[in-house]
């Protein structure tokens, strides 16, 4: 027993010296190597009298554990000291710039189209599209605007052939015609897209964007039209209250027709939507003219409903405080970066349209 005790005491003193890793490992093999002091003690167990054997074994195990723990702790201590020394040397200037990254942006018109689609999606509209090049029939005649109708003057049209049959659509309304011709009522669609008029100055661009809306069913009246647009405008501008004015107007393809103004005021040089005593025209709408329904083989005595057309660029300008329409299409990198949206900012209903 005293042997064991001696070994233990002797080695505890030894291990508590300021040793390096090699020295500790040397002690380790001295004790636990093949012929180590502790290892050889284990071999002795069988030669000890049966009476003492149990105690001896238990003592030996205890000393073994104790020394082993001590060695492990010492090794850990030294290693962690080593790591700390190494880390001390590895310090970088963390204020140096990160690796380079580039950021893309979504054009405000695209973002606005997604916002509009998201709002109308909520009340059951689906998105339709039509071609940019249209024929005269779909763009005008089918929309109750026959040739030699003065209303055609309101649309400065780009033509693609001398007979003036092929043209760039002047509005998104021909999508109404296409949609109704290919399907059966009811219809509940919006159709965003590019539109063209040969008109170019500070406030007009030869290309701009419109979204068409069409809702045809058995009992859709002007109240539904008002409700739908009222809902849309509030959602789009993300305000609770909005001053809105419906006033009579004229479009050949709707009867009765209306233009819609919203209230605004200029505060600190910025336009504030919803309040104020100024009016701003933002869209045209009305009940689809029976002649249009007849042209697309829908029976106006059974079906009726409304249509509207909104200038998307105008909406984007108002919502995001953009002054110059032409800048939308001039592709200035600084402008795109300033007014663009992060591609991860997908407008959704649950998260809100904008951050």
């Amino acid at each position, binding site marked *: 027993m005293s042997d064991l005790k001696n070994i233990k005491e002797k080695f505890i003193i030894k291990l508590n010296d300021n040793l390096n890793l090699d020295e500790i490992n040397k002690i380790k093999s001295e004790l636990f190597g093949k012929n180590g002091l502790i290892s050889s003690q284990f071999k002795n167990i069988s030669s000890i009298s049966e009476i003492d054997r149990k105690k001896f074994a238990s003592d030996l195990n205890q000393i073994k554990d104790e020394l082993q723990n001590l060695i492990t702790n010492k090794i850990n201590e030294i290693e962690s000291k080593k790591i700390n020394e190494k880390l001390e040397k590895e310090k970088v200037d963390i204020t140096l710039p990160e690796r380079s990254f580039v950021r893309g942006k979504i054009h405000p018109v*695209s973002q606005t189209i997604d916002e509009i689609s998201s709002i109308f999606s909520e009340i*059951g509209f689906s998105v339709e599209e039509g071609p940019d090049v249209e024929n005269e029939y779909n763009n005008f005649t089918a929309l109750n605007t026959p040739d030699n*109708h003065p209303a055609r003057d309101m649309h400065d049209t780009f033509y693609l052939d001398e007979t003036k049959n092929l043209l760039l659509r002047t509005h998104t309304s021909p999508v109404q015609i296409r949609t109704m011709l290919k399907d059966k009522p009811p219809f509940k669609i919006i159709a965003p897209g590019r539109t063209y008029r040969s008109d170019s100055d500070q406030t007009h661009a030869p290309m701009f964007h419109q979204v068409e809306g069409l809702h045809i069913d058995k009992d859709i009246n002007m109240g539904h039209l008002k409700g739908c647009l009222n809902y849309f405008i509030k959602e789009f501008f993300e305000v609770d209250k909005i001053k809105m004015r419906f006033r*009579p107007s004229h479009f050949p393809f709707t009867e*009765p027709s209306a233009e819609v103004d919203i209230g605004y005021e200029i505060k600190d040089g910025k336009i504030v939507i919803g309040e104020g005593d100024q009016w701003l025209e933002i869209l045209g709408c009305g009940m689809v003219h*029976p002649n249009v329904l007849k042209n697309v083989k829908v029976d106006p005595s059974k079906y009726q409903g409304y249509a509207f057309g909104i200038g998307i660029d105008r909406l984007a300008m108002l919502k995001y405080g953009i002054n110059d329409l032409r800048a*939308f299409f001039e592709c200035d990198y600084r402008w795109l970066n300033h007014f663009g949206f992060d*591609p*991860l900012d997908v407008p959704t209903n649950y998260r809100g349209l904008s951050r």
Partner: protein
Amino acid sequence: MKITFDWLKEHLNTNLKEEKLLEQLTNVGLEVESVANLSEGLDLFKVARIIKTEKHPNADRLKVCDVDVGEKELKKVVCGASNARKGLITIYAPPGAVIPKSKAKLVVAKIRDVTSYGMLCSESELNLSDESDGISELSSVKYKKSIGKSYFSKSKSNLIDLSITPNRPDCLGVRGIARDLAASGIGKLKDFKEKKNKSNLKQSIKVKINKEKIQGCNAFGSCIIKNVKNAESPKWLKDKLISIGEKPISAIVDITNYVMFDINRPLHAYDADKIEKGIVVRNSKSGEDFTALDKKNYKLEDNMCVITDNKGVLGIGGIIGGTRSGTEFDTKNVFLEAAYFDPTSIRSTAKKLNIDTDAKFRNERGIDPLSIEEGLNKAASLIKEICGGEISKIDIQKIETYKNKIIKFDTNLFERISGFKISTKEMIKILEDLGFNCKKEKKYLRLSVPSWRPDILQDIDIVEELVRISGYDKINIVDPIKERTKSTLTQPQKLFHFLQRAIASKGYMEAITWSFTDSNYNDHFKGLNKEIKIINPISSELGVLRNSIFSNLIMYISKNLDRGFKDLSIFEIGPVFSGSNPGDQTTVVCGLSAGKKSRLSWIEKERNVDVFDVKKDVVQTLVEAGYSSDKFFIDNETPNYYHPGKSGRLFLNRGKDQIAANFGEIHPNILKSLDIKSESLVGFEIFLDNLKLPKKTLNDQKPKFIISDFQKSERDFAFVVKKDVKAQDLINVISNVDKDLISNIQVFDVYEGENIPENQKSIAISVTIQSSKKTLNDNDLESINNLIIETVENKTGAKIRS
């Protein structure tokens, strides 16, 4: 349409203030575009007398005048008019006044070293007449006591500019506007007592309307006023025209204009003595020509409605008169015309001749065919009143007699469309106020449409009248129901939005550019497409529809490079055109990337953007969109605007059916010819319409989740192959060796040069081998190893590098 409150009140009895009235105009659909005070600042213009004139010391043609403007001191004014003379009473504009014609604001100015305080004005400068020769000469009898007083009488009436929609010709006259307002319940339309001229004098010029296949004129009314003395209009008439921004010309012309603005009845006055042997209204024949009042000579085509006499064309009916028969100050006998022209005929003639006049604007919208007599009476009486003379009987020639349109109106339709109710009694009241004749018949109203409303054709138009006059604010809001029965976007639309954001997330700025472009740019990128010209482009630089988005993008990237940006990535998603028919278009995502990666980085090595950057953007985007890159097939048969050696075509599978995308360096010749200053320019096109939609959407159940936990092993091979052997082929051969065991193949080195024979290259590939059934032992691995080497060597002519 310009009106004033005062003029309106000549037709409307109302207590309403101007502000409320303006609101009501908009409420009934006569939108107020602007309101301006015309007389604002006009009080500055003073009646003045020239006391003394001297020759300007430094200019022969200028005079320095001392002018009495009713103040203590005389004003020194430099004046160039030859009629400026001592004693002349004229009109003086002080510094600060705005000259009506030029809108220029006067300041104290030195004119050739002499300071001039204000200006003496000509009638033309004040928009009083066309007289620009010399300064205005006022009658000394009338004005001698007015020196220093304002020349213009103060008018409190604002100029109201209304935007009249093309369906409402009746509101191109003040009376029509008053009628709408009265119907809306804010006043009463004044009774209009027509002055009938009792005359025994015969209308001595014979008028005949020819019956034509395309009838341009249906009715032609006329009368003669004999022995008139044409003169300047009296002040009330001048003021009236000036108040709506019109310029007075002579009494006869001013009167016809006045009647036109008042009741929208265009008239035309001829010098009766210049008409040769009666008037024939007929269609023109190709080859005829005539000189119009705008001093232009017009060559006429067949079937244009013209007013003629024995000598030829006098005027184009309802559009413009001619110089030959116009009235002048010395006109003795006036022939007055009031006719009804077919709007379609007017419009097509005016379009062909490219003439735009006030008369055309009104006639093409449709004039009240029953206003001929009223107009002639009104104008003739005024001419007699102002110019004297004797009025003849009225002669009206007609091709057909006008009948009022009759509409049977189902009163239930109103609520069905508007969503609110008004009583039949109210309906009748509104319609009668608008001039309809109403008869109640059981369920219907039998309505006779007033002759001045050509826009009212069917029952829906009646609904519009009733809603409009009742007020749009009566329409109840019906909140929309939040319910969706159909998905908002179709799969291709979803793909559009996905690709748009996927590309943007790779560092590209989204641009939106015109669908048209400059043919000089388009030529570089049109490939096999033909050019699609716009007949009437805004400018020649926007003369063709784009065959590719590149033409616009490259132009704008070049502009941005010129702004000093070096590293730019932009893209556009939108239409490109292959023909001029509807539907000859496809949707393309097109991007360009210029400059370097990691420019001036302390940590990364800078390098030019290259073809593998755009390849990554394209492949990553397609993979994100749900396409499997394992199946992609790439070749190098790209369009000629790409660098022939550094570009590729990508197909979604080996079937090569439709091109999914092109990518590569833009051809150096194009950069040179367009003078693009960038270290490198690479681009891509993804053809949306060629992307087969993935069969499985995210909605569909994901495939079964299968993984293998058996040990995997990686083996590296280096093959020496001919230079033209493609990595894609090598990978393909290897993956086909054993699809069950080979789970991944990675090219990790490509090497040419020392130790490799000429025209050959070494490709190093790491292959991951893993079984889903068992742990592979050394034998298994060895045999697949050998199989890979053997197959690659056999199929590609490669040699394993030892």
